[in-house]
């Protein structure tokens, strides 16, 4: 690191900028790919349950049964798409995936409700997707329980002349994501994952390309130093990465309507640190692989998979096996995901997020130093 020569650093940076700007295809990919990924994952990965396709078989056809059915119809979580007339039809719809759930009201439903007696409501679901089914069942349960409670209140009022006072009154309110839209939770984490992948991919080619085309042999015969070469190579990709970050934040804000509650300055400052780490990781991979194909494949496996699966973006870290939880501490995306979520959703700043920021600084510094050290001015 001793004696960093800014002229040589500048020369490398200028050359790398030219490489980037004269390869419009690569530049296009660098800008468009993160946007495409944001769109695909942002829209596809929503974990909200909306309009579950529902079949209703009302065998009773009474005002009471129609009342319950209308509550399903009125719910935003369900959409009644079939009115089967037999269990055969119910099963057929579920099997074909036309519906995900079926509500079956028995013939005696209306009569028993009217006379204040207990009656069963049957709900059949397609259990293959356990998560979605569990969610759907809880929504259905709520609707049925609500109706059941209203019937009870009505009955008591008829007998005693006044409505009963329920012993517990639950008032529920979600903070930070008031409407509990998963999009608002997903987009900040997604930005972290995408930035990790795209930046490491960008730089994973740069050093390997010089080895492959033979320019590296010429380069190492000059007085250039590792620090000058690596920092010079980082410069243009850092610029591209920051543009990607800016576009992602803009898309998150205006396309996905995700509010940013924290400081924008802090957001970009920490992103810059994260970028340096991810870009350096790409260079490190590139210097070790010495082949563009190997480097880009390795960069993909080394960044995307852990960032996607182990960062807490997709799966809650607290629910992972202990051994895997330990591994997640080594995944820098984990800290960036936590940081972005905190900053986006809760508006927290350095006061709460300093451990994450500190670890990202450590990651960035470690990667940068390793990348510089990985550059050997020797063949073989």
């Amino acid at each position: 690191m001793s004696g960093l020569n800014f002229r040589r650093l500048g020369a490398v940076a200028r050359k790398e900028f030219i490489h980037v700007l004269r390869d419009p295809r690569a530049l296009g990919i660098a800008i468009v790919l993160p946007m495409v990924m944001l769109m695909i994952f942002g829209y596809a990965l929503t974990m909200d349950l909306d309009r579950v396709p529902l079949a209703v078989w009302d065998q009773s056809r009474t005002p009471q049964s129609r009342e319950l059915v209308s509550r399903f119809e009125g719910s935003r979580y369900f959409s009644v798409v079939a009115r089967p007339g037999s269990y055969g039809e119910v099963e057929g719809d579920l099997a074909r995936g036309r519906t995900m759930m079926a509500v079956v009201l028995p013939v005696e439903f209306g009569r028993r409700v009217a006379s204040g007696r207990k009656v069963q409501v049957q709900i059949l679901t397609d259990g293959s997707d356990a998560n979605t089914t569990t969610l759907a069942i809880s929504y259905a349960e709520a609707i049925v329980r609500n109706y059941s409670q209203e019937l009870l209140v009505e009955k008591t009022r008829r007998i005693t002349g006044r409505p009963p006072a329920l012993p517990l009154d639950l008032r529920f309110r979600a903070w930070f994501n008031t409407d509990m839209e998963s999009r608002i939770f997903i987009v900040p984490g997604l930005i972290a994952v995408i930035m990790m992948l795209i930046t490491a991919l960008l730089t994973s080619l740069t050093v390997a390309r010089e080895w492959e085309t033979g320019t590296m042999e010429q380069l190492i015969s000059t007085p250039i130093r590792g620090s000058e070469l690596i920092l010079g190579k980082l410069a243009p990709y850092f610029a591209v990465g920051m543009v990607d970050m800016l576009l992602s934040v803009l898309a998150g804000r205006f396309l996905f309507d995700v509010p940013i509650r924290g400081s924008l300055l802090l957001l970009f400052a920490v992103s810059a640190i994260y970028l340096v780490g991810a870009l350096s990781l790409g260079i490190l991979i590139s210097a070790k692989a010495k082949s563009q194909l190997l480097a880009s494949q390795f960069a993909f496996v080394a960044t995307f998979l852990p960032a996607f699966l182990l960062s807490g973006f997709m799966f809650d870290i607290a629910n992972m096996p202990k051994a895997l939880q330990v591994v997640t501490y080594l995944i820098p995306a984990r800290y960036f995901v936590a940081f972005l979520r905190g900053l986006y959703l809760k508006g927290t700043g350095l006061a709460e997020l300093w451990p994450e920021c500190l670890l990202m600084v450590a990651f960035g510094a470690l990667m940068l130093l390793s990348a510089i050290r990985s550059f050997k001015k020797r063949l073989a």
Partner: protein
Amino acid sequence: METVRTQALTRRFGDLVALDQLSLAVEEGEIFGLVGPDGAGKTTTMRLLTGILEPSSGEAWVDGLHAVRDAEAIKDRIGYMAQRFGLYPDLTVQENIDFYADLYEVPKAGRGERLERLLAFSNLTPFRRRLAGNLSGGMKQKLGLACALIHTPRVLFLDEPTNGVDPVSRRDFWRILYQLQQERVTIFVSTAYLDEAERCNRIGLLHQGRLMACDTVDGVKGLLQGALLEVRCESPRRAAVLLRAAKIGNVALFGDRIHVLAEDADRGRSSVEAILRVEGLACHGVDVIEPTLEDIFTSALPSGAA
């Protein structure tokens, strides 16, 4: 003063000995040619001397600096042109030269002048805005040379610089090297072309990692003991087989002629004529000729190698 010196310089790659105990010295201002077929160890020697490859054993000094201990200091004083075109195809001629000028910290003052001179010298002036990737083979090599010369090196290492270059560009290239020699630049060049080796002040013959001879071109030719006979006859291919079987000396086929290295000119001539007569092959003439480097190679190297 010796600008390049090696002492039992050896490099192994696994079991393969790429360079075996190379010891040689190159004087300041000399054009020294390292001559040998592919795989002789020329590129390995170049890489060891430019400090980008470490020797397995032995030592080397360039411009008084040790090739391993002072490898980085050496890099300021040398220009190196690798065998493979090492410039950036998506940068223009001028951008490539500027890049290397900055790496070598060539002062901005006077750089323009030097650049103009180098461009003019290599006939690249009209192409300065052209992308290096769009240059012809000969122009690429001249651009490589210009990049290696931008910082006025004391020693220039050129690894097969004219490989695959047309004859006109080759002549241009050598004209530039002679001009550099006027400026006391030491030039260490490797080549597989024997006609090109004849342009060097001194040459070293390298074969399978070993230095077979090291002298002036005439000196190396003088190493050939005996007289070289050129035989022109009917069915040269068959005749060569017969002469080789008769063991009258080293026999090599050059197109439709046979070169025979005999101990004595007259006795050699009569034995050749006698052998051909017995086999009934018409002999059109047997002349004593001046050896070329190719003869040196075919006689000095184990048969079948050259």
